[in-house]
Each structure stands twice: as C-alpha cells, then as structure tokens.
C-alpha cells in the first residue's frame, strides 16, 4: 500500500463536496483510502491521528487542500489524484458557469438582498465567530449549523445576539422553522399554533412530525443548539426564545425540548416558564413527568407533541405506555420467544432519539442491561464521513457486523426523512437488514428489527413508500420511537408484554 499526498494550494472547497469526491474515488480499483481535507490545524490533527500525515501535508495552510490517497501502487495513486483534480475542476467550472453570479462576501450578498433577515452558516467551526458577528452587526438573525465552534465563541455570539434582539440558533443546530419555512434538516409540516424551542435538531423534527400526524402544526421552531442549556451558556438563547414565542400572537402553546439541563439552568428555565403567560410543555428526556403551574413536564418527544395537541384541543392528555398498541402487538405476538434474553442493538442516526431510547431502556430493564444504543451521528463515527442521515454506509456496516454477533437479537433503528436527508433512506436500510437476517439465519439465528419513522406525508421521500419498503424487509414499523424501544424491550424480555400490552387492552 502506498501513501500518496499532494497539496493543492489555494483550493478551498466545502466538506460536502470533498466527501462526495473522496467517496467516488475510493471506489476506484486499487484504491484503499482517499482523504480530502483543507489544511486547517484541526484537520492536520485528524490526519495525524489517522496516521495519514506526511511532511507535504503538514506544510499545507487552511486554504490549501491536502489530497491523501492510499493505493496498491504508484499507478493507481497517480490516477486517483488525477481523477480528484478533474472532479475539483469540474465542480469549480459548474459553479462559475452558473447563470447567477454568486457574491463572495456577506456584504456583497447584502447588496443583492438588502432586506435579508437571516444568515444561515454551515462553515467550518473556526470561521463561524467572525462571520456570525458581522451578521449580527448588520441586524441579521443567525442559524448556525456548524459544529466545533469554540464554547467561548458561542457564549459571545449569544450575548451579542440577545443584546441586539436577534436569534442565534445554534451552533450545532440542524433544524429550525421560521414562519412556516423549514431551515436545515426539516420536515414539511403544517403551519400551526405550537411554538417550539429545541436544543436538538432531531428532537424538533420528531415533535413537529408527531404534531403534523395529530393534525396540529408549528408556528415557529427555534433551535438553540446542544450546548445552550449547559452551565456555561446558561440557557441564554432558550430563555430569549421562550420570551419571543410568548410574545408571538401566532403561538398558543410552547414546547421546549432538551436533555436534562444543568441544575442552575433548570432553575432559570422553571422561573421563566412560570412567568410566561402561555402554557408550556417541556420534554426533558429522562426527567419524570409532572405538572407545575401551567407547565407540563413529559418524558418523551412523542408525549410532548401529544400533550401540546391535547392542550390545544382542550382535552386531557391520556397517559399511556404505548401510542399505537396495535402496531406493537402485531410485531410482538408472532415473534414468540425467539429473541428472549438476547441483546438489543440500537443504531440511530438521530442523537436525541438515541438518547431517548437509552433512557427508556434503562427505565424498562434497569441500569445493568446488556443492550447497546449507538448514536451514529456522534463524532466517533463521522470523521471525514457524511452524517448517517445523509449517507447510510456507516449504519449498513454496523448492521452487517451485528448479523455475525450471536448476542444480538433485535436491531432498533430510526429513519429520518425530510429536507436534507437521504432521498430514499428506507432502501439501503431494508437491504442491509435483509442481508443481515440471511447471514444470521445461515448461522441458525433469528434477527428482528424494529423501527420508527420521523417524517410526514408531505416529505419528499414519500412516507408511505418508505414504510412499505421497511415492512417488506420484515422490519416492524412502530408509530413512535418509544413504541419501537418498548417493542424491542418486549421482544427480549417477554415478561414486559404482560405489563404493557395488557394495560393497553
């Protein structure tokens, strides 16, 4: 194996384009690995860790592109690099020959769109602060998808935004809704009366989709980023967004989605919710349900949507362990004891859904259980690779691995549809599960798979078709993530069936 490095000076390209090109060239015969990284300090460290750093690479600057190819021989390496150069050229040409001339800076963009009110930022984390501050100074709200933004930058940006009466959604925030427009990874949901504030993108997506299924809609969905409720950031943007939604005439109820905040922050949130003059539902995954004043605290995302819908309809929320017991029964009944005492392996693309699954399993099976829930969107799995919501390859690999693991009896997955997601995520998932079940079957084992889908009828992927594709591969599709988790739990621990399914009868 030869390691071949070339540095292309002054050749900036964003990570999505670089990953697409490296993905394609990786398929070339004789090529083992292709890594395309801009020469930023962070990327240099990554290359070092991955054992791909060379002297040539180390000399590259942040605006230079480091091309690293691992191939069987010189010929294949050289051909791969040539292919990469060609694809980079083609990308540049395609962009430059586009009829519309793209401005190069925020200021020249403002000359084209002087009444802009939002800047969407998905740049490498180190560059975010300067651009975001410029935007705030120009009276523009922020949607920051970028991760790896230093904590002190986030704090400074949120302070500045709040002082100017502007939103700073994120950093590390994938979803938002403003005036019915979905920003980032968003599902097509109806406009409605429920305002959401969420520290999680998939959390917001999940609540929005469930509301849509219940015939309700979103007024606005403000994403605040995963770190907002930490002690350091202090819930700054959450508090600001709660005030904004409370003052918004189009919002009649507020849903707040988060993981358990720092205690000092929790106190601030509670005080704020008390002072709001609108009813609020808080889904703080892992905290027990309760009602305090006008605020309803629920345990799961689905419950948050259910509670909000019930509130608007003026009916009481009927608590229940399962949202759609019929669907669960249809999976559990025929399974018998095939998966009993084996392990669940959760392979999630949505971090919050994984977190929810983990919490629910601990509740159901105790702290000391053999099941594993993986968040495949975690840094550990996504270095130099696209997020699993966009590229199914990592999950496919894990499914096939699991097929050979005799301990695994049930695969537990999520399927996230909507803008920005893979155009047909059910297919690769269904194919992988089909293959995995065959492998397991040849080794004399049954392997079950249960899933929930985050999506709406209006999403581009065609929700009904996605469901059908999964079902055709023998995957049990349940109405919500908690239903899927509990369904998996009942498959491996039959005693739970008496408890949960009988209650629903």
């Amino acid at each position, binding site marked *: 194996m030869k390691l071949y490095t070339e540095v292309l000076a*002054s050749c900036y390209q964003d990570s999505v384009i670089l990953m697409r090109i490296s993905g394609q060239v990786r398929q070339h015969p004789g090529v083992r690995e292709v890594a395309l990284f801009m020469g930023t300090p962070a990327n240099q460290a990554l290359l070092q860790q991955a054992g791909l750093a060379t002297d040539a690479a180390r000399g590259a600057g942040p*605006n230079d592109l480091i091309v690293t190819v691992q191939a069987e021989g010189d010929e294949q390496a050289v051909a791969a690099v040539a292919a990469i150069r060609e694809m980079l050229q083609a990308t540049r040409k395609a962009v*430059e*020959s586009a009829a519309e*001339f793209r*401005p*190069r*800076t925020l200021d*020249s963009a403002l000359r084209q769109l002087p009444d802009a009110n939002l800047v969407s930022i998905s740049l490498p984390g180190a560059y975010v602060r300067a651009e975001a501050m410029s935007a705030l100074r120009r009276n523009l709200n922020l949607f920051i998808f970028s991760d790896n933004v230093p904590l002190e930058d986030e704090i400074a940006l949120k302070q500045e935004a709040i002082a100017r009466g502007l939103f700073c959604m994120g950093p590390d925030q994938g979803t938002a809704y403003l005036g019915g427009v979905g920003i980032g990874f968003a599902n097509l949901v109806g406009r409605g009366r429920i305002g959401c504030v969420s520290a999680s993108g998939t959390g917001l997506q999940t609540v929005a989709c469930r509301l849509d299924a219940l015939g309700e809609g979103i007024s606005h969905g403000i994403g605040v980023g995963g770190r907002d409720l930490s002690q350091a950031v202090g819930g700054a943007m959450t508090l600001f967004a709660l005030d904004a939604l409370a003052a918004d005439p189009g919002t009649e109820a507020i849903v707040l989605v988060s993981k358990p905040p720092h205690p000092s922050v929790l106190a601030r949130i509670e005080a704020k919710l008390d002072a709001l003059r609108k009813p609020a539902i808080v889904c703080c995954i892992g905290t027990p349900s309760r009602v305090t004043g006008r605020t309803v605290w629920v345990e799961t995302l689905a419950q948050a949507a259910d509670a909000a819908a019930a509130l608007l309809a003026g009916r009481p929320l009927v608590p229940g362990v399962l949202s759609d017991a019929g669907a669960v029964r249809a999976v559990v009944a025929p399974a018998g004891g095939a998966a009993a005492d084996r392990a669940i392996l959760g392979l999630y693309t949505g971090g919050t859904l994984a977190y929810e699954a983990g919490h629910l399993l601990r509740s159901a099976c105790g702290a000391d259980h053999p099941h594993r829930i993986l968040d495949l969107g975690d840094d550990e799995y996504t270095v130099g690779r696209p997020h699993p919501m966009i590229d199914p390859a990592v999950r496919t690999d894990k499914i096939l691995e699991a097929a050979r693991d005799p301990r695994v009896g049930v695969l537990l997955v999520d399927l996230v549809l909507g803008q920005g997601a893979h155009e047909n995520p059910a297919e690769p998932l269904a194919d992988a599960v089909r293959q995995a079940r065959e492998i397991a079957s040849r080794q004399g084992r049954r392997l079950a798979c249960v899933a929930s889908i985050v999506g709406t009828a209006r999403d581009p992927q065609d929700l009904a078709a996605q469901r059908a594709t999964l079902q055709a591969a023998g995957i049990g599709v349940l109405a919500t993530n908690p239903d899927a988790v509990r369904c998996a739990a009942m498959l491996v621990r039959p005693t739970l069936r008496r408890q949960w399914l009988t209650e629903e009868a």
Partner: protein
Amino acid sequence: MSIRTANQECLRRIDEGGAAWVDVRPAREVIPGMEEYTVLHAGPPVAWSDMCGPMRGAIIGASMFEGWAKAPEEAIALAERGRLRFDSGHHHRAIGPMSGIITPSMQVNVVRNEPFGLDTHATLYMGIGKVLRHGAYDETVMAKLRWMNHELAPMLAAALREAGGIDIKAIVAQAVQMGDEMHNRNKASNPLLLVKLAPHLVSVADRADAIRAIKFIDEAGHFVLNMVMAGCKGILDAASGIADCTIVTAIARNGHETGIRVSGLGDRWFTAPAPMIEGVYFPGFGPQDANPDLGDSAITETIGLGSLAMAGAPAVVEYVGGTPQFALETTMKMFEITAGENKAFKLPALNFRGTPLGIDIRKVVQTGITPVINTGIACRRPGVGQIGAGLTAVPLACFEQALEAFAAQRAATA
C-alpha cells in the same frame, strides 16, 4: 476618521475630478523636479541594475535624444556611473505606458484636473511596433521622436490653445458605452479625440502638416491612451493623502516590480515582483520572449476602467483571450473588491451600473481577489515592441503589505 468616511471622501473627490487635455509642453517647463539628467520611468522606483530590457533601451534612446550620449554605450556608461537621476514618474505628476521614460527635453501632454487645480503629464504616444517605450532607438525611432517633439507637439499645443482644451473625461464616458475599456481597447475613444482635435489642427497648421498629424494620430490607434492615463492619475492624485482611507490610488509596474499606493498611506509604495502575463501571442512569439508586466497603464484599472470595465468591452477578449462571458464575470468579480461605483462611467450591459470604483485593500485581502489587468505583452528584448496581449493581476502581496502598514499606522495614531 472612520475608514468608511475616509473612503467615501475619496470616492467623492474622484467623482468630482476632471480631466482636460490642455497643452503640450517640454517636460522641463512643466514637470516638477525635472532637473538636468533626470530620467522619469514607469512604476515604482527601480535601480538601473534591476531595469528590464525595454526600459533600458528607452533610456538609451532618450539619452541620445537629449544629447547626453552620442552612442548607446555612452548612455549605458552614464547610467552605470550614476550620472542619470532616475525616479518614478509618479513622484513628479508624470506617467507613461510601458517604460514611460520622460527626460527634460521631451514634449509631454498636460492634462488638468480643474476642480482640484492639479496638472499631470504624460508622454506622447509614438504608435506601435518599434517604438521608444518598448526600448527601440534605431534611426527611424529617433527620427520619429524628433518629428513628434519638434513638429507635432507645437501643432498640438497651438490646436489645444485654440480649442480651449479637450474634455478627456467626457470622451471616456462616451467611449465606455461604445465598447472601449480605455486600456487595451480605444477603438472608439481615439477617433472621438481626433474628431475634437482635427478642426483645430487644420486651423493652426498648414494643410500638409495637419493631414500628417491627423493620419499619425489615427494610425497610432492608442494616441488617446496617454491623455486618459494622465487624466486618471490627476483624478486619483487629488484623492490621495486622505487619512484612514484604504482605497488604492495607483497601480504601476516597472518591469521588475509591481507597486500600489493607497490614499491613507501617503507616498508609500507596496511592491512585489512583477508577474508574467497570461495571454495570446502574435505569430512567432511565445512566453519565452515575454517581459514581466510593465507600465503605468494600470492607472486605468485603478479608476475602474480597463479590465474593471471589461463587461462593456467584450470585443477586447479577441485581443487578450477569453470569452465575452468571461469579460462580464471579470467586472462582476471586481465589484467584490471595490468600495463603490463610477458615476461617470456606466455600462449598458449591466443596466447602466457604474463600473467598480475604489479598490479597497481590505476587500482584496479578505477575498483574495486581486485586480485583473488587461495589458499588452512587451518583448523582453529591447526594441522589438509588443508581442501579444493578455491578462495579469496585481500581486496579493502588495495588498497584504499595505494592509499591515495601514493597521500599524492606525494603531500608532490611535
């Protein structure tokens, strides 16, 4: 002062500036600091030892014209012994294309920025091919030089006096809507100038002389260029020296280095090695024959003409290479690095948007987009002349250095 305010003041002065060709006079009579043995050249200051072939050739020719030397070797000896006083024409309100050599006896165009009371001076354009500015000094060149200085110049001066000057800025404003960008393409502006001048030439000179002068100006093709260059410099000089201003007021090349000047940074030059030109070569010539970028003509780009106005001059791509789409994109790109737009020079192709005006060193460094220059390619061997045309850019290093200097100066005065 805030940088924005300073830059706005700079653009205001540029907008209010005028350019009228008022006279033709010997350099020693009108150019400040034009003492004996003074040799002014294009671009930032450069020593004889670093000068390129065409510039040295032009100096040899000029020395013989002045009578300082009877043969090239004598001229070279004078230069090597430090007997000639070299300086950048820019330091003396003087300017010229290619080597831009001006010596005391040479007749120069006088162009006036009336609102600011400022005169600038440019060489008389000799034509194309074997000409002094490309380093030619054989007997045909010397004879032409003598005719231009002793016969043409007085004729022009008399004609201009009668005409009361000719408005160069107005000619540029018209020509820019007729497909000229004023640096490489003057196909409209040259005749426009001639039309204004001709009746007065006929009036002040005898028939044969007038005809000869008119034919000369027409065949030269770019005779108007030198007046335009002087006009641009006069307008930009009046906008120089504004504290806290980040706008570029000069871009000039001496065949060895390219230099820029910035309004808020006084007389300082920020230089980098002169780049080679990417372009189209005349038959028989190639990159191995090319001189590095040379001349003061980038003063046109500095004010939003030349390549910055390329969207209005798509035909120029036949000369410098590229496509009309490229011409459009070049101007669009230049808007990214300029502070404003020209009020006087508007492009129909862009809905009469003014050409990009006021190259801001901050924007150049931020975007990495450097001003593109449309230019002729000179032969590195003196006396051959132009061998092609193409595009080059001002080195980013000039702007980075200027930015550092600006920041340091601002910090020091804070």
